[in-house]
């Protein structure tokens, strides 16, 4: 099995997610990009676990999935609140607080 390819895939996914968080203006897309970063972590953990023949990485993946789910739950609750209060979900509009 070609592990290098998996490591590169995970790195590329992580960078794509990072760019998504930094560049996109819609809160929902930003949250999706965050999930992408966490899943890049998962791929790295699983492939490293298989490569090293230790199970720690696979346990870690289950925990990361749990964290991602909890994070998404709270983030979406906030997005709903944001939409009801301000009527939009764009990052650019979150600029009441400055300096």
């Amino acid at each position, binding site marked *: 099995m070609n592990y290098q390819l998996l490591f590169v895939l995970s790195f590329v996914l*992580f960078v794509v997610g990072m760019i998504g968080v930094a560049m996109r203006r819609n809160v929902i897309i930003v949250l999706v990009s965050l999930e992408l970063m966490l899943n890049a*972590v998962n791929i790295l953990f699983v492939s490293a676990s298989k490569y090293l023949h230790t199970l*720690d990485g696979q346990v870690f993946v289950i*925990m990361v999935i749990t964290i991602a789910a909890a994070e998404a739950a709270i983030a979406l609750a*906030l997005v709903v609140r944001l939409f009801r209060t301000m009527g939009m979900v764009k990052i650019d509009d979150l600029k009441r607080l400055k300096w």
Partner: protein
Amino acid sequence: MYEGLTYSTTFSSILPQVIIAAAIVVCAMFDAFVASKKWLVGIIALLGLGAGIAASMSLWGQNIVEFSNMLSTNDFSLIVSITVMIAGIVSVLVSLRYVDAIDGESGHYYLLLLSSVLGMLFLVSAMNLIVLVLSLELMSLSVYPLVGMTYERQASLEGSMKYLILGSFATAFLLYGIALVYSVIGTTNMYAIARVLASRRDLAVNVVMMAGIALILVGFSFKVALVPFHTWTPDAYQGAPAPVTGFMAAAVKAASFAAIIKLVIVVLSSYHVPVSGALWWLSAVTMFAGNIIAVLQKNVKRMLAYSSIAHAGYVVVGLVPGSAFGMSSAIFYLLSYTFTVTGAFAVITYLEKKDGTGNDLSDYSGLSRSHPVLSLIMSVFMLSLGGIPPTAGFMAKFYVFGAAIRSGYVGLAVFGILTSVVSLYYYLHVVYAMYFEEPEHATDVPVAVGISTGIVIALWGVIQLGILPSDIMDLAMKSVQSLIH
């Protein structure tokens, strides 16, 4: 390392965590079934935190490793646990009136606060990076909704959203760093990683390993708000209700820093690439930027947010030398900052109005005419933040700069002292406004027992640590030694 220690499978070594978890359940039940009296939920939270502190004290001096090397209870974890639980008690006391003022259901405020404390307790006793990440997230995920608690205010919601996005971003960095370290070493146990790091010199030139360590440091720098990873802090601190801001500045910061200190002592001290150079720059930039931007602020809460960034820089000064004395001085700094900042935010809570206004410097002008005692207490906290004797803030700065000078980092210490002179400008500005400016409008705040009790606890800590610091410093030294073996 940890093989020679006592093993057991009982829950007695994590008694504080068990107590807090039980308090969460009782609070939830009470909130659900005795819905009319919200302050009772707060009282239960207080009892739980008090019992947690008592349990931590009863475990003092023991060194127990449990749950398949996942958790360790030692003096280090206990002293930080006690610190965050004191911050929790003051925050709950300060919140009592404020939570009552929120319309509708509000008992979950205490649930979130307690579960955040639970995350911190596990964070400081984590031996495995899995536990470290999980507890860090338990802590952070409980604080995000607390910041957005007053969601009718746009600023509160906005601060919460920004905090969540950047906090999760930081978690992703931290996780990727851990994954890289794991892919090189093959274990997630901190002591096992340290052993491999110490025995394999080739890891010092391994790019993946260095990237992993760097990403872990970046992740934690986000959590404790070191410049340039601080951008979420002012918004989250200003948007959050004042008691929550105090809790974030004191407890969340102390627990995250404790995790960094533990990583530096346990893991990074065996690494052949010294991290002190990176910490040196982080600390210098943080002290400089935090203090300079704070000077420009007109809102007291936002000013204290930048001041809290600057204080994070001072704590890192204690970490740079890597000596046991430096680490102990950092722990002492965290304790003294906890007392000072929770007290300051208790006073701010007194003056904050329900719609989130009342925090501007102009609202503090002439406060000494109408509220002489409150002004005096606020002045003590401001002087402690600025580092003027005989307060806790002075002793804390004295110890961290002393540790830096002792290990030969004179330049960093001098720079730190210069920036803290700058910081006096904006702390004394608050004092000046309260005593020498004419009041712009009449301020009338009703006396609240909870807030006053919280202020008394914080004030006691500030004075106690300022006048008799050596006992606490001894405890901090012991706690650092318990990590080193």
